[in-house]
């Protein structure tokens, strides 16, 4: 954090002014994304937007939300590059595991129908 060092120069007993505009901006963004998810889920009928399109939109919006929480609230965006990749790379592999196991679930479903 670059701005911490400026605060450390203050003498004992002297308290700096709060600097929270960025935090509230991220909060508003998170709130807006959640509201959009609700509008997609409840206000838009399936005839206009099929379930598959809705699900893809949910996943995109969730990843954006996660990016803001991890990047800004957890400061990962301000860490060194090695740290960012040490966290992100395993998670990318996990996402791949999710994709292949969902595909596997689909083929289990086919197999159940086939054997019936």
């Amino acid at each position, binding site marked *: *954090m670059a*701005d*911490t060092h400026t*605060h*450390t120069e*203050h003498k*004992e007993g002297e*308290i*700096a002014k*709060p*600097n*929270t505009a960025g*935090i*509230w901006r*991220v*909060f508003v963004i*998170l*709130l807006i994304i*959640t509201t959009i*998810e*609700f509008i997609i*889920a*409840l206000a838009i009928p399936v005839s206009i937007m099929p379930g598959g399109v809705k*699900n893809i939109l*949910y*996943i995109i*919006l*969730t990843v954006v*939300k*996660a990016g803001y*929480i*991890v990047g800004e*609230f*957890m400061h990962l965006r301000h860490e060194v590059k090695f*740290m960012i990749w*040490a*966290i992100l790379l*395993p*998670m990318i592999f*996990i996402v791949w*595991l*999710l994709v292949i*196991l*969902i*595909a*596997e*679930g*689909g083929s*289990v*479903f086919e197999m*159940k129908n086939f054997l019936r």
Partner: protein
Amino acid sequence: MMWFFLLSDAFSFSGLLITYGMLRYSAVAYNPSVHGTYKFSMDYWPIPEKVFESVPFLHGVSLPLVFVGIMTFILIMSSVTMVLAVEAGHRNDRKDVEKWMLWTILGGFTFLGCQAWEWSHFIHGTDTGTIDNITGKMVYGANLIQNQYGPPAFADLFFFITGFHGFHVFSGVMLNVLIFYNTAFGVYANPAREIDLGAERYEMIEKVGLYWHFVDLVWVFVFTAFYLI
């Protein structure tokens, strides 16, 4: 180190959510042209917005996902107050750290209370119940063996995923209480700690804050995977 703990914790949550994805896709989906109008049945996977549509004090009113939305808002809000506490810690502002930690703890307890209600409602079920295909008996609510809303696996996953997350929230609240206690009793304001930590005396707030944001992050994924899709 907190980051690597959180990474390993993310693996366990991913394991649960991947299990949900796989079982969901290997089960029969609801199809209006085959199954007719939607009702709870053990023949197909339930639609979450039909299951989670109750709000306390509004019995019989269908408000899909409203209560869960309130819970999401509470958790995001308490994440924001946690960032504000961390920010106050950077400024060595003890009064502000105390104030924002107290709000964070309040948010955590509120979320846990909401989840307790959600579980209790899920376990007790609706007034009408559903007939079990195999035994022919009426089933009300859900437990680990039977489930009025759909296949038993749906209830099992609900209990495991939201339960595991709820336990994380509980642990987080305990850690928050601990650091609030330390702040209030001036542990972090002790000048002797400056020798070890320099100006970063409130570093502990930041570490616990990371854990608390992680809990919020997991809820964002649970919310999408379990309630929206």
